[in-house]
């Protein structure tokens, strides 16, 4: 920012210009304050709506009740929590190697022209709406899995769809992290006569490690919070999954499914799951931001 401390405009209209500048500064500050307050407002409303349930239902019951059956005042969120973690974890396991390989392909293995096209394709993949992924999964992937092992709507379908959705996040952040590796490292590796994979494995990936981790955290946040696509392909049965072919229900899907008719404590329980999701994602985003600021941690 380059500004003279005092305005040096022409002597005829300095007062006016100063007034306008001051007005604009306050306007900008007002806008910034609204944005900063928005997060607090969201947290406040989630907390206020969850409060009725938090007040007279002990926290342990959300994990230890016999089942999720709001009509009979049973609020066991544990199966949904496990569904969310299985789906997100599985998607991360598949998407991380694919995403990092995509970034390596763009950065080191392809001609600039191919790299440009491939990068654009990844960006378009990122722009496809979740409802479209869900619809495609429902009409194409679920019948295919059904032939393999009924009933097609399963944890596996959720993992595959989520993989597609978070792959662009991982690939694009990994590519940015690889671009940030100083060129002299790579030239040094080449001068030592390292093979291409030796250079990538021994120099580029370790140097880009924190950037990669930050990208994976962001992707994890996205996978945990994803609603529509997962809702459309996972079958939405509330129980702990025993195998990849079992249907599951995630926390986010549960909110979308039951919010329409939820009342009182049931509604509050849904807001509690929303609050849980938000806190999980905030922690992940905070960790990603911290990794970004401390690249040598």
């Amino acid at each position, binding site marked *: 920012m380059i500004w003279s401390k005092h305005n040096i405009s022409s002597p005829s209209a300095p007062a006016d210009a100063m007034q306008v500048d001051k007005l604009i500064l306050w306007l900008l500050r007002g806008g910034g304050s609204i944005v900063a307050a928005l997060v607090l407002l969201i947290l406040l409303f989630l907390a206020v709506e969850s409060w009725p349930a938090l007040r007279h239902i002990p926290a342990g019951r959300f994990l230890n009740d016999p089942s999720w059956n709001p009509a009979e005042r049973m609020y066991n969120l544990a199966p949904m929590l496990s569904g969310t973690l299985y789906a997100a974890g599985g998607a991360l396991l598949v998407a991380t190697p694919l995403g990092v390989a995509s970034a390596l392909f763009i950065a080191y293995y392809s001609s600039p022209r191919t790299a440009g096209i491939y990068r654009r*394709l990844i960006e378009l993949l990122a722009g496809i*709406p979740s409802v479209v*992924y869900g619809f495609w999964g429902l009409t194409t992937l679920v019948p295919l899995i059904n032939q393999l092992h009924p009933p097609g709507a399963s944890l596996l379908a959720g993992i595959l769809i989520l993989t597609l959705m978070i792959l662009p996040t991982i690939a694009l952040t990994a590519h940015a992290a690889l671009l940030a590796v100083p060129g002299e490292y790579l030239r040094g590796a080449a001068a030592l006569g390292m093979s291409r994979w030796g250079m990538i494995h021994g120099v580029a990936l370790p140097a880009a490690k924190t950037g990669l981790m930050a990208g994976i955290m962001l992707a994890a946040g996205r996978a945990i919070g994803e609603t529509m696509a997962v809702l459309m392909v996972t079958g939405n049965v509330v129980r702990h999954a025993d195998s990849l072919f079992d249907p599951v229900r995630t926390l986010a899907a549960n909110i979308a499914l039951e919010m329409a008719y939820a009342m009182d404590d049931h509604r509050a329980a849904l807001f509690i799951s929303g609050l849980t999701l938000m806190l999980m994602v905030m922690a992940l985003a905070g960790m990603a931001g911290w990794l970004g600021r401390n690249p040598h941690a």
Partner: protein
Amino acid sequence: MPESVPVKLAHALRDRFAQLAVCLAAALVCAVFVWIVSDLVRGGWAHLSWDFLMDSPRNAGRAGGIGPILVSTVLILLIALMTALPLGWVTAALLAEYVSASSGFGCAVRYSLQVLAGVPSIVFGLFGNAFFSIYLDMGFSILSGGLTLACMLLPILVSTAESGLRAVPDAYRLSAAALGLSRATTLFRLLLPAAAPALAAGLLLGIGRAMAETAALLFTSGYVDRMPGSLLDSGRSLAIHIFDLSMNVSGGDAPAHASTLVLIVALLLINMAAMRLTAGWQRRKIVSE
């Protein structure tokens, strides 16, 4: 050294294997992309027609078209953009030109945006339902859906506009200060026009993000598929229409495919326009420097 030959061979093999794996992964991603797009185009093409775009849905969407749904989608978009654009660009100007990144206020705004960018859309839906629909008493309406979307769009609008403003060369600011221009004049006459392509690209990306959104609108703008009479009527967006047809309406696959195709084509056009804007802008900047 006799033992170095097998080691070298092993290294060369490993190198080849890594190259093969990376290229296979890239090919796999391309193949899946082509698979998805060809599936959607094949499924939707037959049902798509001018009448489909203009007609009202009949029989829960199994017959008829998506006319009122397109109108609701556009109205929701307009509300969201009219709220989020001024707020987002004002915040971007503040962050890029007025407060330093290390000041407390700048940090708070930045952290807040970072959190907003990560909040799952279903949580925005819960918030919108509790705040706009119930607390502010807007009910299930296009207005409350649009305002909820506006909250979601803020991070992307701010980050694109801020990076656009930061990319304006400092020489512009120095020259303006040397000419004795006031800060307001510099901002409005010099910096914002110079960053206009970035602002436009951010606007397009925001439109794309808003059109793609489903979960945040489920409990804010609602399901009603009639032509909206006012902004306080409930209106169904295109994404929700696809969701409803494929999940809740048996025999709705053909119109769902066609609606999906409409949505995808609109989004592809918007995204490509945004990419072209940013690419052309970067090229011009590099040439002019």
